[in-house]
C-alpha cells in the first residue's frame, strides 16, 4: 500500500501562451489520492477548465510557476501524448471533429499507443472489437458509431457520450472530466454519468470539472473544491456541491471578499 498521492499540485500558476497572455491559474494547490473522486466547481472564468487542460498538457497554456507530481514523477516534464500513455485522460468539454478517420481506427491507434508504452503487444482488430463491445453497451451506443468519422456530424450529446466511451476503453488512471454535463439532456446525462461512475476503482481517480451539481448526483464526489479567480477557495464534501445547487455562486464571491 503506497501512501504517495496520485496527483500533487503545488502553487500552480499558468497563463495563456501568447505574448501578454492573461494569467489564469494563480496558485492552485490540490492533492488527489488513488480511489478518490474530486469535483472542482466554479463559475465561468474561474480557471477550472484551464486546470484540466494544463494537467492534460495543452500547449496553449504556459505554466509559469509551481509543480505537479503524478505517480511520483514530474508531470510538467511530459508531453501531452506521454501523459496520455501514463494514464491521464481528458474528456473534452468541446470534443473535436476529425473527418476522414473512423472512431474505431483512432481508438485502436490510441489503445495501441498506450500498450506499446507499457511494452505490451498491439491489439489486433478482432481483439480490439471484443474490448470495445462491452463498453459500447455500457454507454448505450449504436455500433454504427465506430465506423463514423471522429465526432463528425455528432450531436453535442453524442460527442459527450463518445468521450466517456473512449474513457471506458482507455481505462485511465486519472480521468479529467471537463464539463461533461454541458449540452446533455437528462437521459443522456444519466447514461454518461453512470457510465463514468462505473469506472471508479481503488487504483484510479476522477477529477470532475463542472459548473452544476447535477452530474455529481451520479458520480458522487469524495471531495468538492470551489475555484474562484484561479485559486481553490474552499474544499469540503458533497454538501458543498448541494449548497452551490441551491444558492448559486454569489455567496462564494461574498465569502472571497470577506477573506480578501
Amino acid at each position: 500500500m503506497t501512501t504517495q498521492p496520485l496527483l500533487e499540485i503545488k502553487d500552480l500558476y499558468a497563463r495563456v501562451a501568447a505574448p501578454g497572455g492573461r494569467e489564469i491559474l494563480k496558485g492552485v494547490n490540490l492533492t488527489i489520492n488513488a480511489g478518490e473522486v474530486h469535483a472542482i466547481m466554479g463559475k465561468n472564468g474561474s480557471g477550472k477548465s484551464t486546470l484540466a487542460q494544463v494537467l492534460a498538457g495543452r500547449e496553449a497554456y504556459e505554466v509559469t510557476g509551481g509543480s505537479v507530481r503524478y505517480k511520483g514523477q514530474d508531470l510538467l516534464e511530459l508531453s501531452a501524448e506521454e501523459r496520455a500513455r501514463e494514464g491521464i485522460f481528458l474528456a473534452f468539454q468541446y470534443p473535436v471533429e476529425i473527418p476522414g478517420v473512423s472512431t474505431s481506427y483512432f481508438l485502436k491507434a490510441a489503445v495501441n499507443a498506450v500498450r506499446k508504452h507499457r511494452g505490451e503487444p498491439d491489439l489486433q482488430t478482432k481483439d480490439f472489437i471484443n474490448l470495445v463491445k462491452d463498453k459500447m453497451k455500457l454507454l448505450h451506443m449504436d455500433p454504427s458509431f465506430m465506423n463514423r468519422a471522429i465526432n463528425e456530424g455528432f450531436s453535442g450529446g453524442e460527442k459527450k457520450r463518445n468521450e466517456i466511451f473512449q474513457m471506458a476503453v482507455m481505462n485511465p488512471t486519472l480521468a479529467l472530466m471537463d464539463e461533461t454535463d454541458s449540452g446533455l439532456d437528462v437521459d443522456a446525462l444519466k447514461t454518461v454519468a453512470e457510465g463514468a461512475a462505473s469506472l471508479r476503482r481503488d487504483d484510479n481517480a476522477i477529477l470532475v470539472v463542472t459548473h452544476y451539481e447535477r452530474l455529481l448526483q451520479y458520480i458522487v464526489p469524495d471531495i468538492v473544491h470551489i475555484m474562484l479567480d484561479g485559486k481553490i477557495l474552499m474544499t469540503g464534501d458533497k454538501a458543498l456541491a448541494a449548497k452551490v445547487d441551491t444558492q448559486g455562486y454569489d455567496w462564494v464571491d461574498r465569502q472571497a471578499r470577506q477573506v480578501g
Partner: protein
Amino acid sequence: MKGQVMTQLADKNTHLSNFSQFDQSAGHAPAWLDSLRRSGIDRFEQVGFPSTREERWRYTNVAPIARMPFKLAHYDGQGTDLLDRYSFGDDAASELVFVNGHFVQQLSKLGRLSRGVFAGHLPDALDSRSAQLEGSLGRLANVEANPFVALNTGFIRDGAVIHIPRNVEIEQPIHLLFISTTSREPAVSHPRVLIMLEEGASGTVVESYVGGRGLYFTNAVTEISLEDRAQLDHCKLQQESGEAFHVSTTQIRLGADARYVSHAATLGAKLSRNDLNAVMAGQHADATLNGLVFIGGEQHCDNHTILDHAEPNCPSHELYKHVLDGKSSGVFKGKILVRSGAQKTDSKQTSKALLLSDDAVMNSMPALEIYADDVKCTHGSSSGPVDEEQVFYLRQRGVGLEAARHLMTYAFAADITRRIKVERVRRRLEEYMALQHGLPLDLRINDLASHDEAVKQL
C-alpha cells in the same frame, strides 16, 4: 523585345528539329496520321510555348521547359527496376509498358482480354482498326486546345489504344505504365493515349507516370470517348522524378447516361501542369473529378479543369485536395461551363488545401460560366494549416505528435484516396504519404479502409 522573340524561336527550334529527326525515322504511317502530325507541329510552330501573360498560364511559368534543349527520348533497355516497383502484376487485366515513350512488348503483359477488347499500342491498332482511329485520334484533344497538345500530336507514334466494345465490362484495371529512365541529356517524350468505350461498355484504366532520377519532360495527351451508357473509372498517378517536368491534357467526351470518374494524383515532378476537361455531350451524363496533390520542396503543380455542360440534366462533382509542404506551390482553376440549353445542370466543386509549412502557397480559383437559367452550381475553396485543436485531441489519446500530424494529413486526403477502387493505386498513395512523413513502419496508416471493413463485418 527582339531578344525575347529570338529565345522563342530557339525554344521552338529544339522541338522542330526533333520533329525532322522523328519524321525521318518514324517509318510508314497512313496518310491521315501523317497529316495529323503535320497539323500538330505546324500549330506548335505557329504559337510556340505559352507565356504567363496568357490568363490560363498566369500562375505557371513554362519558360524552364521552353529553354531546355530536350532531345527525343529513346528506349535504352533500362527501366526494369521501376517496372518492378510500379507494375500491377496479376492485378491488371493488361499492362502496357512504355519506356521513354516507346512501347516495350517484352515488359508488357497483354493478357487475354475478352470479346473483342483491344488494349495495345498504336501501330497494332492501326493494323486492325485504322478507320476507327482515323475518326477518333486527335478529334477530342484538338491541336488548337493548347500548344502542348499540338506538340504532342506532332510526335504521335507509339501511343496506347484501349477499345472496349458495346456492353462489354472489364473488371480488372488496364494499366498504362509510362516509365522515364535517367539519361545523360535531358529528354522529352510525348505519350499519347486513346480510350474508346462503346455503348454500355465499362472498364477501369490506370495511367501511371513514373521516373527514377534526373531532368526530363513528359508531355502527355489522353483522349477518352465514352458513348451512351459507357462507364469509365480512370486513375492518373503522376510520380515523376523530382526534377522532371510533366504537362498533360486529358480530354473526355461523355455520351448520354455515360459515367466518368477521374482520380488524378500528383506526387512527383518539379513542375507539373494538368488540363482535365470533361464535356457532357449527352443528357444525364455524370462526371466526377477527384484530385489529390501531395507535394513539397520546391515543387509546383497546376491543375486546370473544365466541367463542360453541353446538354441538360447532367450532374457533375469535383473535389480537389492539396497537401503542400516546404516551399511548394499549388494552383487550382476549376471552371464549370454551363452552355445555353443545359438546364437542370447540377454541379458541385470544392477545392481544399492543407498547408504543412508557412512557405507553401495555394492559389485556388473557381470559375462559373453559366448560360442557362435553371441550374444548380456551387463551389467552395479553403486553405489552412493543420488544426492544432485536432492534433491536441489525438495526442491527448496517446498518439504521438508526428503520428498525429500524419493522421491529420491522411484524414485530409482520405476523401480522395478512399474513393479509389484500384487497391494498387490507393496503397501506393498511402505508402507515399507515410514515407514523406518519415514514420516508422508501425505508425504508418495504410490499412484504414481494411480496418473499417473488418469492423463492419464483426
